[in-house]
């Protein structure tokens, strides 16, 4: 699930004053949100003098981008600045499309893994979006502007996803990528069969426990979904024919989502590792007449790239994570290159709030491992994930009429020395490094004041009767609630060693 733990999990972090954090996050939201409030979506902005990596139309030196109403109106060398337009001078800087992460778990309030059943197609990430998750801002600061927030990988058929734009400061609804096709998480292999997971004492083991069982669970679910669909189709047909006095079949929210898959209205994002299970799912999908949108992780995808390409699925993989479990032992950083060579649309994802801060660097590595061209490598984190998520008409390249989701970098984004300076979504600057740095002193002052206040409040006489210990009086909870369970905080996780709770692995 949260692969950050792989890199982060071994050391314990320091003491965190929880209440203070909650307070500061709310302060941070207010402060960071201010540039957003100052801008209007209808405003006209021009980014000038930039080296523009358009992805689809080559590189434009000393180019300009005209943004109107949140959309890219024009891209070119000589663009006149309309009266009243905001001008962003990007001399010596690079502009790319906003980066897109096809596998993320940020902004999830509470657990994102409803692991009690093997089929949980009725639950949805959309219902638990937490717009106050600081990782939204942290990822935005690395040039990420959109993410596919997925359910965990505990179940053969997991929950529904939420595609979001990282509009930091907006509410949960405001984060949703309007118009993005809905999707769902599937999972194959070690995680759904619970290979590396010890159930809490007293809990019975859950079917399936083998890859055979994983296939069975999926086939069984779709056999039911097909019957369900038949029932509904028959009803709709009779209703359309004008029959009266019809009784609608019973709604089943679990099967409803699967019916949408059968109808091609919901994208399947399938967590997988081994070549055999990838082929298995292709066969099941073809048996029931639906398509897999993306294979996720897909570390052995290079072994069956031909089959993936023939089915028409995309592949969303890691740049180079390897060997954290048996099914990841045949991983190779050349995976993306081989799959792309064999005609698969490939993206590089993060599965981690940390990794999502430098997807540009993960893409750059693919030039080293397998010799991808610069444009092909850049597509891995822009146009290709946009295609995989069904939003390529909106984002993924710097082209007229697409959404103005853009990143301004001080150096070529494939350089290890590059730092994102501004991240724009719908033409609005949601991250501005300069402003962020300027605000730090203010935040520090605010924090000190809050600490003082908390200290005073903790003194016995000042404490109002009945106040709970440690709860700061006047402490506001950020929208969506500030307390999150440990799995949202990889750095807080207890050391994972040897036979530790492997469930935290992707």
């Amino acid at each position, binding site marked *: 699930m949260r692969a*950050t733990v*792989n890199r982060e999990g071994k*050391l314990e972090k320091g003491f965190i004053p929880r209440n203070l954090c909650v307070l*500061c996050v709310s302060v941070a939201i207010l402060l960071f949100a201010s540039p957003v409030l100052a801008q209007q979506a209808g405003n006209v902005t021009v980014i000038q003098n930039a080296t523009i990596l358009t992805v689809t139309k080559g590189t434009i030196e000393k180019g300009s981008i005209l943004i109107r109403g949140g959309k890219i109106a024009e891209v070119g060398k000589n663009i006149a600045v309309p009266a009243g337009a905001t001008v962003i001078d990007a001399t010596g800087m690079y502009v790319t499309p906003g980066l897109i992460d096809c596998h993320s778990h940020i902004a999830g309030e509470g657990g994102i893994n409803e692991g009690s059943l093997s089929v949980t197609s009725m639950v949805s990430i959309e219902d638990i979006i937490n717009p106050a998750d600081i990782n939204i801002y942290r990822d935005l600061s690395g040039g990420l502007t959109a993410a596919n927030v997925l359910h965990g990988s505990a179940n053969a058929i997991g929950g529904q996803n939420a595609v979001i734009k990282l509009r930091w400061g907006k509410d949960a609804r405001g984060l949703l990528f309007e118009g993005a096709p809905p999707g769902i998480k599937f999972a194959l292999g070690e995680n759904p069969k619970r290979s590396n997971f010890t159930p809490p004492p007293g809990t019975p083991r859950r079917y399936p426990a083998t890859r055979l069982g994983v296939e069975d669970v999926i086939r069984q679910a779709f056999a039911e979904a097909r019957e369900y669909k038949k029932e509904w189709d028959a009803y709709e047909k009779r209703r359309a024919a004008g029959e009266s006095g019809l009784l609608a079949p019973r709604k089943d929210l679990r099967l409803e989502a699967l019916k949408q898959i059968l109808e091609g209205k919901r994208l399947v994002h399938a967590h997988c590792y081994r070549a055999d299970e990838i082929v298995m799912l292709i066969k099941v999908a073809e048996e029931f007449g639906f398509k897999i949108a993306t294979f996720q992780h897909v570390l052995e995808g290079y072994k069956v790239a031909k089959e993936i390409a023939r089915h028409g699925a995309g592949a969303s993989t890691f740049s180079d994570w390897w060997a954290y479990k048996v099914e990841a032992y045949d991983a190779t950083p*050349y995976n993306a290159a081989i799959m792309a060579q064999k005609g698969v649309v490939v993206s590089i994802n993060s599965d981690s709030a940390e990794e999502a801060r430098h997807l540009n660097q993960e893409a750059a590595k693919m030039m080293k491992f397998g010799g991808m061209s610069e444009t092909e490598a850049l597509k891995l984190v822009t146009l290709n994930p946009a295609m995989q998520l069904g939003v390529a008409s909106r984002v993924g390249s710097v082209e007229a009429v697409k959404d103005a989701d853009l990143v301004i970098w001080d150096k070529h984004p494939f350089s*290890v*020395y590059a730092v994102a300076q501004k991240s724009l979504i719908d033409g609005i600057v949601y991250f501005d490094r300069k402003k962020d740095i300027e605000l730090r002193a203010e935040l520090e002052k605010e924090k000190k004041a809050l600490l003082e206040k908390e200290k005073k409040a903790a003194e016995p006489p000042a404490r109002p009767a009945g106040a709970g210990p440690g709860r700061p009086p006047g402490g506001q909870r950020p929208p969506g609630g500030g307390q999150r369970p440990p799995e949202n905080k990889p750095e*807080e*996780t207890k050391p994972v060693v*040897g036979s530790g709770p492997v469930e935290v692995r992707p």
Partner: protein
Amino acid sequence: MNDAIQFFRTPRPLCLRDLCVDYFSSFAAPRLVLFAALFALAMPAAAQTYAITGARIYTLAGPPIEGGTVVIKDGKIAAVGKNVSVPGGARVIDGKGLEVYPGFFDSVSEMGLVEIDAVPATVDTQELGEYNPQLVAATAVHPASEHIPVARANGVTHAVSVPGMGGSVIIGGQASAIHLNGWVMDEMAIRRAAAMTVNWPTLQTGGGGFGGFGAPRRPFTEVKQEYEKRVAALGEWLDRARHYAQAREKGSADKFERDLKLEALVPVIKGELPLLVLANSDRDIKNAIEFCEKQKVKLIIAGGRQAWKVKDLLKQKNVPVILRSTQSLPVEEDDPYDKPYTQPGELHAAGVKIAFATFGGDNSAVGSYAVANEAGNAVAYGLPREEALKAITLYPAQMYGLGDKLGSIEAGKIANLVVTTGDALELRTQIRYVFVNGVQASTDNKHKQLYEKYRARP
């Protein structure tokens, strides 16, 4: 479990190994020289004389040398400079357009101790018991681990393999400095005992784990008591080692009962072996410094995620820090978003000696080669580039007392070198040649073999 073992020990034809070295390079390499070299490539071959000529050499002992030559002889760097003559019989590597750096050093790793993290049978980092100073990492470093060639092909020539990191262990055992090439440990070991691993006891009131299955919350006072007890126990171990050393020196041999644990701690209390203390919070770092000062033992802080909060103390006490990662999230929610990136530069500016390491874990080898990446990220946020290079070469060597043997390109040092197509910290740069302990080592590995095999699938 048996399946897993067979799975990762599947034998491969060794002859194929060397033939795909550098196949993937997009540069017009001196292929003839390369292929000539391949026939002599073996995992440690007999000592050979090499000369890398016409390269830009980052010696890290002075400014870079343009068009310089490095001569490697008998495992050592024999000469380096602009006007160095090539000895007769030397294998010449045309370094024109290439850059030479000291080999990267992953100074806190689990190299060779962990093959597949989720398979306990392949993990040798976690012994039972809280105090295990007698354990030595080198004992269980698996020379045939697939992680070693992967790290090496990406420029990491040596590493410190650390036992017993994390968990409830206090003394994890002796960390070993090893070359990343060799048939057996005897050929790989640089120093079997390079540091004594200590996990600084932390004050954690609960949480952690997955999905709420972590430890339940406990009252702070209870946790603090336990913390103090553990620190006191650590002190007692060192005191006992001191008494043990005195008894051994003064007592008669026949009355002396040998204790392997205390024996292992003697070099620590004598100030010969540094404590590698894993500590991240400013409070833990501060406490560890106070403890080691009182105990008069050498200290390296490892982890150091909040070291920036105690940078003046670190400088004042001259304590070096091996940083876990620039590519990590800020510790606290209200830390600046870029704190992990800016911290190395801040520590350097304050005069603290730093190194970058990856601390093993699930991504052992992949993590190891990321050291250059991590160092590069720190440069983007204020660390001078040369300091970043030193932080993955010379500085960690100095911290372990290996500064006279490794970490820079100077005559007399062990020849651990990488030859690259460009800036060694950049992501797109290819590693062209790797020298370990004076021998040109293969840059082939499992990743490349899988690439070749499946790329060719019809």
